[in-house]
């Protein structure tokens, strides 16, 4: 502990470098984007670009390093694919699809609703809809996922579910294992909010939302006290149960994600603690957190239709909210700037990046990473 404190004390008390040299900027850009130091020739090329006032060109050179995809992006998105939020999890179809989308610069909002999927023909282990061995083997073989011939784009509807049931990484097999397994199909929405809108339910707790979507498996008088329901349970369940219907036909069984159109999975309506509670009868959903003037509409700014049918329309709504763009901009800031945006300048920088990400940059994750890293490294 003393060693740690001593080390950090030196780090924290060290004098700021008055003027960061182009060479040091190039060094940092490469280390943070690719996860490894640049080779001397690359460093010289990047330094020249920075010195010439073109730091974005230098950042793009770092992006071209295979380790940007194989290490930085892979470790970044892995923690979004499991309940433990760990980057030490096995590689899987959720993570493979996300890094594929980033590598191919597909608009990143489609990660939540597009009919996109990635497989690895040279994995050495055949792809299967009930196993993750295909992806695990590819990672253990240290295949180069930055190569489009290795990590290959496909349609998810050709592998897993019918096209009308596909919703980006949300309906991958790994998502099924992590977020649809057992439970009552509430977990998938919670982790979507955590991973892609950067808000857990406690952070969007709102007891003013109407309660008519709350399922009958939610106790109305927990501990014999209805105030607990009204002041606590409602804050999360009123909103989340309105969204849950989108997943009425999804489940995870026999190690596969399943979709049974027209047949609501039993686990959603099984528990009956309050018979007047909502019974889910189809896959319609309504976002009550998007009611005009409510705290969460002001915070996450949902746009377009805030009610619909099925997972794809729900996740399209989420992906097009300002909350999604804000979250991606914040995550990228933390990834390449190595800190949280806590002061006013950093918050304004992140907000500006988010607005550009969702508009002129058309949800390009690569552009978001380049502009964020240049902003906090080259312009510091």
């Amino acid at each position, binding site marked *: 502990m003393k*060693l*740690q*404190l*001593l*080390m*950090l*004390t*030196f*780090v*924290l*008390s*060290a*004098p*700021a*470098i008055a003027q*960061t*040299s182009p*060479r*040091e900027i190039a*060094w*940092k850009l490469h*280390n*943070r984007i690719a*996860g*490894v*130091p*640049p*080779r*001397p020739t690359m*460093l010289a090329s990047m330094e020249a670009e920075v010195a010439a006032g073109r730091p974005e060109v230098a950042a793009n050179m770092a992006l071209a390093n295979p*380790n940007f995809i194989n*290490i*930085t992006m*892979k*470790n970044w998105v892995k923690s979004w694919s499991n309940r433990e939020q*760990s*980057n*030490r999890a096995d590689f899987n179809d959720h993570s493979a699809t996300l890094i594929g989308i980033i590598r191919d610069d597909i608009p990143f909002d489609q990660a939540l609703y597009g009919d996109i999927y990635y497989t690895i023909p040279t994995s050495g282990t055949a792809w299967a809809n009930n196993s993750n061995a295909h992806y695990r083997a590819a990672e253990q073989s*240290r295949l180069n996922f930055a190569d489009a011939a290795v990590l290959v784009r496909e349609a998810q509807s050709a592998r897993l579910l019918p096209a009308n049931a596909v919703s980006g990484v949300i309906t991958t097999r790994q998502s099924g294992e992590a977020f649809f397994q057992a439970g009552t199909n509430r977990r998938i929405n919670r982790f979507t909010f955590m991973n892609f809108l950067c808000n857990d339910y406690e952070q969007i707790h709102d007891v003013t939302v109407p309660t008519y979507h709350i399922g009958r498996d939610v106790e109305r008088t927990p501990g014999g006290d209805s105030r607990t329901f009204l002041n606590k349970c409602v804050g999360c369940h009123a909103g989340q149960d309105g969204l849950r219907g989108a997943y009425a036909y999804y489940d995870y069984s026999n190690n596969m994600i399943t979709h049974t159109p027209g047949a609501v999975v039993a686990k959603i309506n099984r528990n009956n603690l309050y018979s007047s509670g909502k019974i889910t009868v189809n896959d319609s959903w309504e976002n009550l957190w998007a009611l005009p003037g409510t705290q969460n509409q002001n915070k996450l700014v949902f746009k377009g239709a805030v009610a619909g049918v099925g997972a794809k329309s729900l996740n399209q709504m989420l992906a097009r909210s300002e909350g999604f763009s804000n979250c991606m901009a914040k995550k990228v800031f933390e*990834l390449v*700037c*190595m*800190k*949280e945006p*806590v*002061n006013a300048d950093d918050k304004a920088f992140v907000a500006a990046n988010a607005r550009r990400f969702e508009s002129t940059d058309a949800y390009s994750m690569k552009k978001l990473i380049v502009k964020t890293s240049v902003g*906090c490294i080259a312009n*510091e």
Partner: protein
Amino acid sequence: MNNTHYKIAVFVLLTIVVGTFTHCVQNAPVGGSSTSGSSRSPSGGTAQTPEQVLNTAQVDVGLKNFEQINYSFAELTGVPVSNAQVSAAYTAVEATLPSENEVKVLQSSNQVAITRLAAEYCNQLVTNGTFSASRDAIFGTPVFTLAPNNAMLDKVAIVNRTTNAFWGAGIIPQAELDVARLELLNLFDDIVMMDATPNVAATTSKAVRAVCTAALSSAYVTIM
């Protein structure tokens, strides 16, 4: 590398990490001035412990995670991550290497794991003929055929070439670099002096491996 050399390498690299790393941190710790290891809260109330000061301070540097460290070592030494001995060493320490990029959670156990991995990369680099091209490019020639007392052996050049190769030439302020290089030179001399047969070429190899390990596992490589 035997245990004595390993311990010396660990000690020296930690000294280097603590004593020379000065990558910038722009924001001062929250909570006002600090005296005698504690500081006052903004309200003038309870004194903050050093741990609390560190927890609330904002840093803008990150720590490489387990995979970033492994691939950084491979990139710098030219020894691939697939090398059998390196791969075995990585498997042995992987769980102890840092998981996240949060520098504040760095533990001494992380640093020991980093050093163990670096030691194997350096062992392969110096002793495995497959990597002679990388070895010569990093340390120069002739090095490994000369005993430490041979006038032809330029240990200053070895240290300078090692730091340039691993830390990047022209990245670190010169005064800071001079201090680090001096420590590495001392390490080189200590390894030679403590060896039972100090004036044979094999001892040069041991000393170079120690310098290599200390430089490779330092914060200049693992902090970004």
